[in-house]
């Protein structure tokens, strides 16, 4: 595939993610911060976000699996997850976290369980598109460096 075609595909993907509400303007901020001096910035942030999120989702699953739920700990993790999703521009994940926080404040176990499922659903949808995005970015970067040699 030509460089132009790759770029086009990436643009179409990212635009569709905005339209579907997966991403918000914060993601545009990240894109703006990427430049020649830090070409891998967006990829780095996305990778950190995914690592962070998966770790927290694992902890949240464990916590909600207990007979007696420690809502303070749950709230702390949801707060963190909400923060990271907000920082990366992961709109749907962030909104799901806000819902989750609500149930947590009410000490509502059923609500928390369903909210956790929603967060997971949103996160994994986003994650698969992020994976595609990163692959396209990599191929574009490789092309660019090839061109320069």
């Amino acid at each position: 595939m030509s460089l132009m075609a790759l770029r086009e595909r990436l643009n179409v993907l990212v635009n569709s993610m905005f339209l579907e509400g997966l991403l918000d303007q914060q993601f545009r901020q990240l894109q703006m911060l990427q430049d020649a001096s830090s070409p891998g910035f967006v990829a780095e942030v996305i990778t950190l976000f995914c690592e962070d999120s998966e770790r927290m989702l694992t902890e949240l699953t464990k916590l909600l699996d207990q007979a007696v739920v420690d809502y303070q700990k749950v709230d702390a993790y949801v707060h963190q997850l909400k923060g990271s999703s907000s920082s990366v521009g992961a709109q749907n994940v962030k909104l799901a976290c806000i819902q989750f926080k609500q149930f947590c404040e009410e000490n509502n176990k059923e609500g928390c369980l369903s909210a956790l499922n929603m967060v997971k659903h949103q996160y994994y949808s986003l994650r698969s598109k992020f994976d595609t995005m990163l692959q396209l970015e990599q191929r574009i970067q490789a092309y660019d460096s090839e061109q320069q040699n």
Partner: protein
Amino acid sequence: MAVVAEAQFHVLAVDDSLMDRKLIERLLKTSSFQVTAVDSGSRALEVLGLSEGLTSSSAVSPAHNEIEVNLVITDYCMPGMTGYDLLKKIKGSSSLKDIPVVIMSSENVPSRINRCLEGGAEEFFLKPVQLSDMKRLRPHILKGKSKEQQPQEEETSSTSISSNKRKAMDEELSPERRRLKLSNYSLI
């Protein structure tokens, strides 16, 4: 393209989230600041040359491992020492009190914001911090530098803090308004 020679100021960024550290680092570097990013308040104090065990009143000349910091930007919610605790420690230290401190938080809680402003924070940024927020840092640094040369004007500060407080209460922070505007400029 004209290149304006500007002093490179050094900002100490404090955040327990690795992701947010990367982000603030990039925002600061893009805005021509030198950055040191640490993951806790206690680490920040080490960098500032004020370790937990030492009293701030001990007259010490800058330690060999101490770097000059022109501004501290810190997250509010951190385990152990919060951003507010760090702020108080800095403002309570004779050697560090003139360093401007900015607090960041993902939550818009007026009482929290007020507490920080009253504690001596220059400004409070709502997360996610934007590139445009970086422009607000330099004036605080320059003001801080001139303060070092002038005697403290305690009365003026408390007047301006209470007017900022009134502002914080009155302003309805809509989704569009993500930062508190402080007019500290009346101090100059």
